[in-house]
């Protein structure tokens, strides 16, 4: 049986690097990082050995608390470490996250890993480099300031024969050095007193290193969470109610009993699952089980109209005001013209290609999990609470899953696997079926955005009022919220949910009188429904940006102003935003004129639209070129141009890959995606009832990377999802004069607009 443990160990042996035991629990007191870990305790961030280790052959092993979610961030982090230590990139080995060996650097999410986790690893590497120079100084009998390093070999200036390698200095031994580390998770400051390398000396950062794990992914040798097999492992499936968490009123096992390999039907509270010897038997048995569910105490909303009415009319929990300046009411009263519009965004799916999957091995007082969670330490906390174990008795081993885009911050399946494993006393692998995933994943929630503005006699915007109304995000592991299995066995949440973000409401512009807010409305049900809410790619930004960037476009069109020039008037103090807007429009060959374009005579109408965004200080400019079929209402995006400024760029091609992905996924969301439901449940339960973009509809993509070596490296990729829908909506308007205020931009909606025009 081939498992990740085996291959990793062989891999490390093969490179002559340290040998790490991944199978033992509690961990053996090996060399290096693990030696800083006492039984049941965690690596100490103030010990340099907790961060990295150098083997005799010079291989640098990094115990990163960040994970690769299929975005290539592990490669980029390895570049940062290689750069700081001055070792060849290929000599860096990133060890998959294991909660008994890694430092908790916080959840991997929001495209913020390079921004937050990068400096933590960089500073740890800088501290190691400083220590290695001290050791070299003693060994070579030369002052530190006469030393230089290249490819992991330290030599004396002017006397290159006097040299020593990192491997010779420390290989196989611990540093035994304390560094400073204050704060926790994303906010941890690691060795800030150590001077890092000057950016102008960078050789590895800024180059397009190829992704380290791609070859194994392309040949079937890579071990995804879905591929983990451990001895004695059984297969589980969950059986969930179609609507809300009602109890199984009766469970008829008779039809499942005949299936060979059935081990157990597990019922705990309203949690219901099956464990079998084979995966196919588990699938068959879960389908065969006849369950009648008790009447739900709360109903699903009847339709989208009901959801939007609820959002509009319900008092908010908190208003999340991000900008509040001047006097809006006075300004609106004095305005020579006012504007008002409402925009709608639907519930959408993450739609992981591989449904959730985890393996749990639960013993009497200990548990081990293999999962693709975005927050290994969050999963550890959630599962520990679920099982009633101390956190230190739960070990989480990260195994990369299907791309999750925020979904695996709510690691439901680990809890399912833990309950089933506990029930049978054996390791259990659980994979959700497609309808489980579509039906029960925590969805990107609906948003209702209300915008008002006023312009003066010169056509200058003097008042801007933007409110993005929506739901808090209630599905996340280990933050006082409870996931499905926890809820089903009766555990109650202690928090009311997290923010769905606030950016994209027009705060990128400077208006004299301006208010931008994102009021959170409590979600309807106290129990979880399939319309549960979770973090989805740049949470909330896409909808807010769609609304605010459509709204400013509407005003520009009404005033017969070019949409780019009109925006530039209000970006006076924001040079990066100006640069991004100009870079994108220049690349796209933007012709200055107001929208809409002069009416076309043929069956197809062409148009272009622009939008800008700022997410977590990463700025994007976007231009969509679209073609609208006047007879069918079908929208084809012909070309998408995007400029992207995330400060210092670590890996240009890796960044481009992420941006391309965000453009295509966001196009899909803008044009096609909406979760369908009624009072009885979710209707979008597979890929035919929830279509996503396909190859024939993918446009030509052009990306302009704006590198700013003078700035820190910020988040890349996800921020580019924000302006996509707005640019497309504005292009549809430019082509046809039809203003769409509700996503997705389906042919029906476009056609309805064309008929009205």
């Amino acid at each position, binding site marked *: 049986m081939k498992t990740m443990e085996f291959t990793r160990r062989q891999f490390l042996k093969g490179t002559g690097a340290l040998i790490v035991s991944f199978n033992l629990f509690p961990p053996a007191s090996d060399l290096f990082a693990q030696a800083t870990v006492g039984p049941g305790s965690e690596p100490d961030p103030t010990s340099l050995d907790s961060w990295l280790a150098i083997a005799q052959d010079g291989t640098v092993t990094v115990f990163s608390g960040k994970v690769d979610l299929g975005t290539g961030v592990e490669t980029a982090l390895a570049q940062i470490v290689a750069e700081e230590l001055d070792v060849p990139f290929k000599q860096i080995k990133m060890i998959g996250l294991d909660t008994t060996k890694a430092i908790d650097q916080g959840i991997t999410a929001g495209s913020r890993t390079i921004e937050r986790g990068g400096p933590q690893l960089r500073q740890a590497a800088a501290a190691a480099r400083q220590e290695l120079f001290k050791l070299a100084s003693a060994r070579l009998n030369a002052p530190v300031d006469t030393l230089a390093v290249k490819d992991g070999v330290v030599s004396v200036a002017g006397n290159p024969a006097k040299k020593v390698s990192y491997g010779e200095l420390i290989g196989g031994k611990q540093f035994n050095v304390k560094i400073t580390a204050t704060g926790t998770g994303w906010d941890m400051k690691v060795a800030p007193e150590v001077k890092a390398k000057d950016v102008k000396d960078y050789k590895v950062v800024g180059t397009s290193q190829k992704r380290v794990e791609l*070859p194994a992914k392309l040949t079937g040798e890579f071990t995804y969470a879905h591929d983990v097999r451990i001895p004695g492992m059984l297969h589980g499936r969950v059986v969930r109610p179609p609507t809300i968490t009602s109890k199984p009123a009766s469970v008829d096992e008779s039809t499942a009993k005949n299936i060979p390999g059935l081990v157990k039907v597990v019922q705990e509270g309203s949690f219901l699952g099956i464990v079998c010897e084979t995966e196919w038997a588990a699938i068959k048995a879960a389908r065969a089980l006849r369950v009648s569910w008790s009447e739900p105490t709360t109903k699903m909303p009847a339709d989208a109209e009901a959801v939007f009415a609820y959002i509009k009319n319900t008092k908010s929990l908190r208003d999340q005001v991000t900008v509040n300046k001047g006097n809006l009411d006075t300004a609106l009263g004095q305005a020579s013209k006012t504007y008002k519009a409402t925009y709608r965004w639907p519930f959408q799916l993450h739609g992981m*290609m591989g449904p959730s999957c985890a393996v749990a091995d639960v013993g009497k007082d200990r548990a081990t999990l293999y999962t693709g969670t975005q927050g290994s330490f969050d999963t550890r906390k959630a599962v520990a609470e679920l099982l009633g174990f101390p956190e230190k008795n739960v070990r989480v081993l990260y195994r*990369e899953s299907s*791309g999750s885009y925020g979904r695996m911050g709510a690691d439901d399946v680990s809890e399912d696997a833990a309950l089933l494993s506990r029930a049978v006393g054996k390791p259990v692998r659980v994979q959700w079926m*497609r309808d489980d995933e579509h039906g029960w994943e925590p969805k990107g929630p609906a948003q209702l955005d209300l915008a008002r503005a006023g312009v003066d006699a010169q056509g200058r915007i003097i008042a801007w009022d933007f409110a993005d109304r929506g739901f808090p995000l209630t599905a996340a592991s280990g933050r006082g919220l409870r996931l499905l299995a926890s809820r089903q066995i009766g555990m109650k949440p202690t928090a009311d949910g997290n923010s769905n973000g606030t950016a994209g409401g027009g705060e990128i512009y400077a208006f004299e009188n301006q208010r931008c807010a994102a009021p959170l409305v409590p979600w309807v049900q106290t129990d979880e429904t399939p319309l549960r809410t979770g973090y989805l790619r740049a949470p909330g930004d896409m909808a807010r940006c769609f609304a605010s960037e459509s709204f400013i476009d509407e005003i520009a069109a009404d005033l017969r102003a070019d949409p780019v020039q009109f925006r530039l008037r209000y970006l006076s103090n924001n040079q990066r935003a100006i640069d991004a807007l100009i870079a994108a429009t220049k690349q796209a060959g933007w012709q200055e004129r107001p929208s809409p374009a002069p009416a076309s005579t043929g069956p197809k109408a062409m148009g272009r639209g622009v939008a800008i965004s700022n997410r977590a200080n990463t700025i994007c400019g976007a231009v969509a070129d679209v073609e609208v079929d006047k007879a069918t209402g079908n929208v084809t995006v012909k070309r998408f141009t995007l400029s992207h400024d995330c400060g210092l760029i670590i890996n240009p091609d890796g960044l481009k890959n992420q941006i391309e992905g965000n453009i295509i996924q966001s196009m899909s969301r803008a044009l096609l995606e909406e979760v369908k439901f009624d009072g009885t449940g979710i209707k979008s339960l597979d890929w035919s009832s929830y279509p996503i973009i396909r190859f024939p509809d993918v446009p030509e993509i052009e990306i302009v990377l704006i590198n700013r070596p003078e700035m820190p490296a910020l988040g890349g990729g996800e921020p580019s999802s924000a302006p996509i829908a707005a640019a497309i909506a504005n292009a549809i308007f430019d082509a046809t004069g039809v203003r769409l205020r509700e996503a997705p931009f389906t042919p029906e909606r476009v056609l309805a607009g064309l008929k009205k025009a």
Partner: protein
Amino acid sequence: MARISLKVNGKTQVVDVDPETPLLYVLRNDLQLNGPKFGCGLAQCGACTVIMSGNAIRSCVTLVSAAQNQPVTTLEGLGSTKKMHKIQQAFVDEQALQCGYCINGMIMTSKALLDKNPKPTDSQIKEALAGNLCRCGTHTRILRAVKRASGQKV
């Protein structure tokens, strides 16, 4: 249960399974071939694609009994990290994936395409891959990789 003889990646192996089991689960769990992936179980996404008798098929809806004695090729049958098939190498060259969960289907579908049509046009590649879903949005790179694998200028 039934004993079924399979010819996978040039090797004949006998498995003892429920004959109604979809081929996918046998490949993954009995033969430990992790290339093909479960994505939907409905033949909608393509993550489970293998080549059977020269055609790209969805192993999640193909009964193992139907694969009896038919030559089946999985991703592992094309090449390994030590010796990659030209399509796999082209995907490395173009860095044509992100999470890679769908990529088995992309490669196996492309393999079947290139076997029948060694120099496909852009639109023929798009058409051939129209039934394969990718959620990360790596489409433009995948198209370039397939074109590169066919020896045409990218």
